[in-house]
């Protein structure tokens, strides 16, 4: 089978860029809504902050996996 198109170079960094889009949007939503929630109900600060950090951690994992995978499976 002949190769029609090929991408060479440091594809890992492109992969990281793509992997960071989703978590970037997600973390923005989490902290944006978290700050809004704290502004609406400052007395619930403790619970909101804790859940905010939890959501941040779960979302951030995707970007970090995208960062590490090129090192692991790269050339």
């Amino acid at each position, binding site marked *: 089978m002949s190769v029609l198109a090929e991408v060479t170079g440091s594809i890992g960094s492109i992969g990281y860029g793509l992997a960071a889009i989703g978590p970037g949007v997600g973390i923005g939503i989490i902290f944006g809504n978290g700050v809004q929630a704290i502004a609406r109900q400052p007395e619930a600060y403790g619970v909101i902050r*804790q859940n905010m*950090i*939890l959501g941040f951690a*779960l979302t*951030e994992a995707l970007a*970090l*996996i995208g960062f*590490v995978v090129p*090192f692991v499976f790269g050339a």
Partner: protein
Amino acid sequence: MSVVKLSGDSSCPVTPHLNSGCGFPAPNAEIFFLEPYTTLNIFGMDFVIGKTSILAALVSLIVATFFLAAARPRKMVPGKLQSLGEQAYLFVRDQIAREVIGKDGDRFVPFLGSLFFFVWISNLMGVIPGAQFPIMSSLAFPVSLTLMVYGTYMYIGMKHQGPIKFFTSAMFPPGVPKAMYVLLAPLELLQLVVTRPVTQAIRLFANMFAGHLLLTTFTLAAYYLLSPSIIGVLGSVTSFGVTVVLTGFEMFIQGLQAFIFTLLTAVYIGGSLHAEH
């Protein structure tokens, strides 16, 4: 015509300066594989004694000594050391155990506390001069900690809910249309058995890995740019300033990651103790 040699070129030193005709030696994953000091062969298995294992032993010694020393002469009116130990204990109890697990979270405070302080001090080794290697950037350490956590919440879940109900209550969350279970049940099972431990280990590992790589890059850049030219000096000073700022940021991330690791452990244990309603 100037020819820029790559840093892998044998005529270049390991750490060249600007204008020496050698390219910037960008750090890669190799900086995490340190030369072992010695390798012990015990019962046919190789035990590598290197910087990482010595630092890990040192960290566990520091944490154990601190809490033993703080708790040994337990007085009604606490001294400086004891009140510091109490602060540390209360932080884990009030911010993590009671907040997440609830009333019966108190009996998990020793486990959560040991985890938090071991992970935190291990991470902190990444910026302490002389050590400057975050232990958790070696995948084996987060993985073994995660296996410990995994075993704990699996055992607690099976003990408190019963071995079958533990899995069914996770696979069939209430309040979902019946037809959705075809899609949901395998995903929830995968989440419980595979995704949870894998992401918990990867999260800690990758954060420390990325942070150390970032600090190394800017430190090397500061050294590389240091040369008798205006661009070199300006770049070098800027790069050094960025390194200092990033070190502060990295210390924040290290504490946060230790907190998140413990928080997730508490969430998983809490989920095993009480089924979702």
